[in-house]
């Protein structure tokens, strides 16, 4: 990284300045990293307390997510995220309330109105494409968005994100091939945490590198330290510039760590040793980014106190808010199968159609006749 190099004047440049990042930018990036972690930790507490049935976590991925997403233009570009993308969604405009109502599956959950499992985020307002559970399908949606951006000349960039396990799906090959042929403004992010649920990288990815696969498509593929927020930002910025210039797609593989089990239904000590888990904790992006900003004199004690208080209040507010939100009503459950309702397919009452009336009549007959 160039960030710690000394300038020609022999004076150390302020952190991030070579990347065009101000101190305020860095503080906001830190706030997002720390906020995502705090929201995520609250989710686990709520799960263990029996308040929410399921958690799928982004802990360990936050640095890469904030650094990379920061390079895109909020409200203009597109992201097709995945189930660990809490920090991505927060950086692109979703609020802690939006994330927390998804955990509670409330009627007001903007991702799905309580229809999807937690972790399946999405917001049209914020150009975050709705997440589904089959993995890697979203890559093609981002490629399609990039195709639309190119044809309609909107200047938008479309990015998708998934884990290294998902990156083995056929849709990834089909989409990268198409995006590269047409030089689409598309960016493929792989958050490689070394595990596809329980199966380690060596059993998932031949050659151990997803980034090297980019060469087969004739596009750049780089590997970055996912705990290095500024390195992630720098790589994504390069990819965005390339996409906007019409030079085509890029692949970024961010090496991250998964600090939790795959989900709240997984016990990762069954397949990972205590030593490995302890070593992984040293790769946590949150303390690393904090130390970097403290050392640079950007995260001052006052700033940290302020940010910590903000985050604490936001997490508390989101939890209280989501707890109080009503469930969706079954009366709404037939809505939005299509844009319009289809009365022609309304099922007959009790499955009997016109016989419902006859059945009701029979029920009202005197017992001796009805028998």
């Amino acid at each position, binding site marked *: 990284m160039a960030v710690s190099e000394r300038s020609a004047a022999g004076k150390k440049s302020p952190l991030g300045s070579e990347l065009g990042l101000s101190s305020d930018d860095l503080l906001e990036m830190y706030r997002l990293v720390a906020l995502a972690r705090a929201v995520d930790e609250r989710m686990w507490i709520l799960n263990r307390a029996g308040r929410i049935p399921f958690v799928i976590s982004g802990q360990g991925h936050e640095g890469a997510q904030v650094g990379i997403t920061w390079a895109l233009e909020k409200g203009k570009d597109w992201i097709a995220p995945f189930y660990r993308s809490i920090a991505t969604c927060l950086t692109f405009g979703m609020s802690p309330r939006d994330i927390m109502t998804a955990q509670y599956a409330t009627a007001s959950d903007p991702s799905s109105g309580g229809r999807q499992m937690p972790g399946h985020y999405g917001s049209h307002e914020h150009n975050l494409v709705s997440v589904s559970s089959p993995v890697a399908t979203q890559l093609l949606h981002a490629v399609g968005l990039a*195709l*639309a951006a190119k044809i*309609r000349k909107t200047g938008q960039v*479309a990015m998708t994100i998934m884990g290294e396990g998902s990156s083995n799906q056929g849709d990834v090959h089909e*989409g990268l091939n198409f995006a590269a042929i047409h030089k689409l403004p598309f960016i493929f992010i792989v958050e490689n945490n070394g595990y596809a649920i329980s199966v380690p990288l060596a059993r998932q990815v031949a050659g151990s590198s997803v980034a090297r696969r980019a060469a087969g498509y004739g596009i750049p593929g780089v590997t970055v330290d996912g705990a290095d927020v500024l390195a992630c930002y720098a790589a994504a910025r390069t990819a965005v510039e390339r996409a906007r210039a019409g030079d085509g797609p890029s692949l970024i593989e961010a090496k991250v760590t998964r600090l939790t089990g795959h989900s709240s239904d997984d016990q990762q000590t069954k397949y990972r040793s205590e030593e490995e888990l302890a070593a992984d904790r040293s790769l946590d992006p949150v303390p690393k980014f904090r130390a970097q900003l403290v050392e640079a004199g950007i995260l001052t004690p006052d700033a940290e106190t302020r940010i910590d208080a903000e985050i604490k209040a936001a997490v508390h507010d989101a939890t209280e808010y989501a707890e109080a939100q009503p469930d969706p009503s079954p009366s709404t459950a037939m809505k939005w199968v*299509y844009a319009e309702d289809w009365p*022609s397919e309304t099922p007959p009452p009790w499955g009997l159609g016109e016989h419902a009336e006859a059945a009701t009549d029979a029920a009202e007959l005197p017992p001796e006749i009805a028998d």
Partner: protein
Amino acid sequence: MPLKTFIEAIRDGLREEMTRDENVIILGEDVGKKGGVFLATDGLWADFGDDRVIDTPLTESQIIGTSIGAAIGGLRPIAEIQFADFIHPAFNQLVSEAARLRYRSNNGYSAPMVVRAPYGGGVHGALYHSQSVEAFYTHVPGLKVVIPSTPHDAKGLLRSSIRDDDPVLFFEHKKMYRSVRGDVPDGEYSVPLGKAQITHPGSQVTVIAYGLMAHYALEAADRVADDGISVEVVDLRTLRPLDKETVLDSVRKTGKCLVVYEDNRFGGYGAEVAAMVGEEAFDYLDGPVTRIAGPDVPGVPYNHVLEDWFMVNPEKIANAIRKLAAY
């Protein structure tokens, strides 16, 4: 009114909608310079260029998945799957993604797109160029499924499908492309989705069919007319949503119902129609709801004797009508 072949009507419909709306694009295998293996898109690449008529790699999942993303991005994609037999690699994108996008996002997103695919047998296409795949998709809420039988309906339904705000699967029987001709009005008209049509009024037996079978049902109705049997043919045109009222009104009138489909009999689309009639018109039935469909083998065999054995034809339908009428 000009007389057009089935495929000419489809091509005209594509061209007119692309002219009307610059967001309409076509993508698929060989759809560009070649104009598609059946020439459905012939001439469109020359008229609309590389950006709007896109030759894709041999990647059906990508064709559908990219169309979903392009639809989210404001385009109106028309994806061509070269043969319906080859749509299966895209099943996940159609069923998990296109069909569920609106519902799972609580109307936050939708995927307005059309997937065109030639289907059906009787053309010496064997197991992998003859399949009827509609039952896989009519089962899935969130998808609409259209199967026209006339040039008029093909163009009118295609127009409605392109303008619809949800994903529409538009299956075209390939045997009809050049063998079926019909009047197609000049100028703009459309045929609404979800409306069946009575193509042959009658009083004694209702025959419900779609696609090529809608033609064979008409031929069968003519044959049994000589035996004094009056048949009402209902051409469904849209399979999902199903126009229950037109079907039920006809069965309530005739009291007898034969459902015809080319696909394998077991679990085919016609099974749902038969179940619906049995459930909702029981009091009016004067005989069992019966089906004529393809035999339950894994595909249409190639040899012409075997293919003839597989295919539903007017005579098989006529025989079934005679039996049902005599019940």
